[in-house]
């Protein structure tokens, strides 16, 4: 393996002094950027916290950990560069030797993730003296989690356990917020020791499992990672959704749903979105749990306005049921084969994001304690959110031919910025009355409610009216 690696390296140009300078400068920059939040964390850890804030802080840490596990599971996690996967996997070389570098990278990622979680823990529970133990706990949890994800990659039994753990972590995260006064006080030191011992065991098993990891699984994961890397380097984030979607449905059985025979024709397209959502029960569950996030963030003292989080969450919820519109936009042949007026298609496809967005807003605002006219105002933003979500789903890939705009501190590419704002723009336009009400906090909201109702519906109607076959 060493000979092969040196052979591959021999074809590459040697690292110049400029390269070394760039690496050292980048590391210094990272250290400078990270130093400020660390100092903030250490200062905050010394402060007094209420039980509600402890619960909210723990919730955010657990959500971060669940996201780390879910991402590790979704991305492989054991992958090789496409060329290595194509040439080195199907050789008599030791599988562990081929994968050792990947294992090191995964370990480094886990340690970095663990340090972040470990740093956040003393802030949440106000235990400045337990920083070392918290760091050990964080690193052990992420290294163990990554090892578990490695084992789950080639074993359905381990994968089932990992999914179960993800569910448990999410449920515990919700409970931390819902009943913070019932939280048991777990000593960080002993907990760190137990988790570290488990992580060592899992790490050892994962390291042993590398030798038996099937080439087919590694090839699939590496191809997927290659697509992901290409989409990222080409700045084509839209392709990522497509890849993720196809990967999901390729690996999952579809449970048959009866097609309602009396369903009116115009609702058929909306029904397909319902079928899709019902086949991914984790997604509605996650969206439901996410309705708590604005309240959790508000209790944890995170400086982000609750209403901004509600808007972001509602747009995300609405965007989660726009697969059909996205496919129509990306594959015009399919939309034409369907033979339905694009306005009619889009109007029907707007129903699921509208309803889901509205439901999400109702829950999130209720947890935040906003009822009455504020709740009504929030619900009336749902049509604008649906319009924004549909526009996001139908947007074209990033236009790299657009010029750079110089803002004095360097050029900013217009293409990715416009791409990122597509969808958010009309969602913002359609929620202007609510935005103004949130900024001015008027005593009477009646006028704003009427204005929001008209604006939301007008924006959605105008978007549908102006649409045509992609």
């Amino acid at each position, binding site marked *: 393996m060493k000979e092969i690696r040196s052979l591959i390296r021999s074809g590459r140009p040697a690292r110049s002094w400029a390269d070394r300078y760039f690496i050292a400068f980048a590391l210094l920059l990272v250290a400078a950027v990270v130093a400020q939040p660390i100092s903030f964390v250490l200062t905050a850890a010394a402060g007094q916290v209420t039980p509600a804030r402890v619960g909210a802080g723990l919730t955010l840490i657990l959500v971060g950990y669940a996201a780390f596990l879910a991402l590790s599971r979704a991305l492989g996690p054991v992958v090789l560069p496409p060329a290595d996967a194509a040439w080195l996997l199907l050789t008599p070389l030791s599988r562990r030797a081929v994968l050792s570098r990947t294992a090191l990278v995964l370990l480094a990622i886990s340690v970095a993730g663990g340090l972040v979680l470990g740093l956040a823990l003393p802030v949440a529970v106000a235990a400045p003296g337990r920083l070392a133990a918290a760091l050990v706990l964080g690193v052990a949890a992420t290294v163990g989690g990554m090892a578990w994800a490695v084992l789950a990659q080639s074993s359905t039994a381990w994968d089932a356990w990992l999914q179960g753990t993800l569910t448990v972590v999410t449920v515990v995260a919700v409970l931390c917020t819902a009943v913070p006064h019932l939280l048991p006080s777990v000593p960080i030191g002993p907990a760190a020791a137990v988790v570290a011992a488990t992580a060592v065991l899992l790490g050892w098993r994962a390291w042993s499992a590398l030798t038996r990891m099937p080439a087919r699984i590694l090839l699939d994961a590496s191809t997927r990672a290659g697509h992901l890397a290409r989409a990222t380097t080409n700045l084509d984030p839209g392709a990522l959704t497509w890849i993720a*979607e*196809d990967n*999901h*449905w*390729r690996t*999952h059985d*579809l449970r*048959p*749903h009866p*097609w309602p025979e009396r*369903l009116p*024709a115009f609702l*058929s*397209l909306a029904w*397909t979105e319902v*079928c*899709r959502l019902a*086949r*991914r029960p984790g997604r509605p569950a996650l969206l439901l749990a996410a309705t708590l996030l604005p309240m959790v963030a508000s209790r944890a003292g995170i400086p982000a306005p609750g209403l901004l989080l509600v808007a972001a969450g509602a747009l995300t919820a609405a965007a989660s049921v726009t*697969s*059909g519109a996205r*496919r129509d936009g990306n*594959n015009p*042949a*399919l939309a*034409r*084969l*369907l*033979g*339905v*007026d*694009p*306005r009619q298609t889009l109007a029907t496809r707007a129903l699921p994001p509208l309803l889901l967005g509205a439901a999400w807003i109702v829950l999130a605002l209720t947890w935040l304690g906003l009822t009455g006219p504020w709740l009504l105002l929030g619900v009336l933003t749902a049509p604008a959110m649906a319009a924004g979500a549909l526009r996001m789903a139908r947007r074209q890939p990033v236009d790299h031919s657009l010029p750079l705009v110089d803002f004095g501190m360097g050029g900013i590419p217009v293409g990715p910025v416009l791409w990122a704002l597509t969808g958010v723009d009309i969602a913002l336009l359609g929620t202007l009355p609510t935005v103004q009400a949130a900024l001015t906090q008027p005593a009477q909201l009646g006028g704003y409610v009427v204005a929001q109702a008209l604006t939301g519906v007008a924006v959605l109607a105008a978007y549908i009216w102006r649409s045509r*076959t992609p």
Partner: protein
Amino acid sequence: MRPERPLVSHSVCDMTKAIIAQDLAVELSGNPILSGLHLTAAPGEIVTITGQNGVGKSTLLRCLAGLLPPAAGKLAVMDGPPSDEPAFWRDVALVADEPAWYPGLTVREHLKLMAAVHHRPRLTAERALELFDLAERADMAPLRLSTGQQQRLSLAMGLTRPSRILLLDEPERGLDADFRVRLGEILTEYAAEGGTVVMVTHDLQLAQVAGARRIDL
């Protein structure tokens, strides 16, 4: 602003023809692909277009579908210029060369959807499953089908919905020999109902499907 398409003059309109092309020229990015082409297709007729790679078969199909404006000549599809408009696509079904589907829906649901959005579907979903040999794969995601099965699904979707003109771009792709024969029968039945088929193909046996008129570019 969409560019003005060469409009069909009244003399070109002929109620007995579904497609009339006179002295048609097509360009791609300024490069001439086809010129001086004459083509007619009547209701109930199957026209197959054959030729070597790169002679412009698929380009011609795109032009007939209104996705590419003619550079010169006159073209009428159902008594008017082809246009990329909803009214046009209600009558014209184009099965492109790449199979296409919606994520997260089964094969049956694709056909149910195709039947549901049209008031008078040509086939029921169950009949289409049977006709296109997909009954055993009805509850699978299209992504899990083989290339040939995916192609059969695309064809089934195109033939489930009602249409007056069916445009097919290399429908034989991935299909086994037996099913190619079956496809010939299915298309013959479609034509017998009064529909017009224009099919680009490399399969000379399929190009000679019963009563088909072959145009070699």
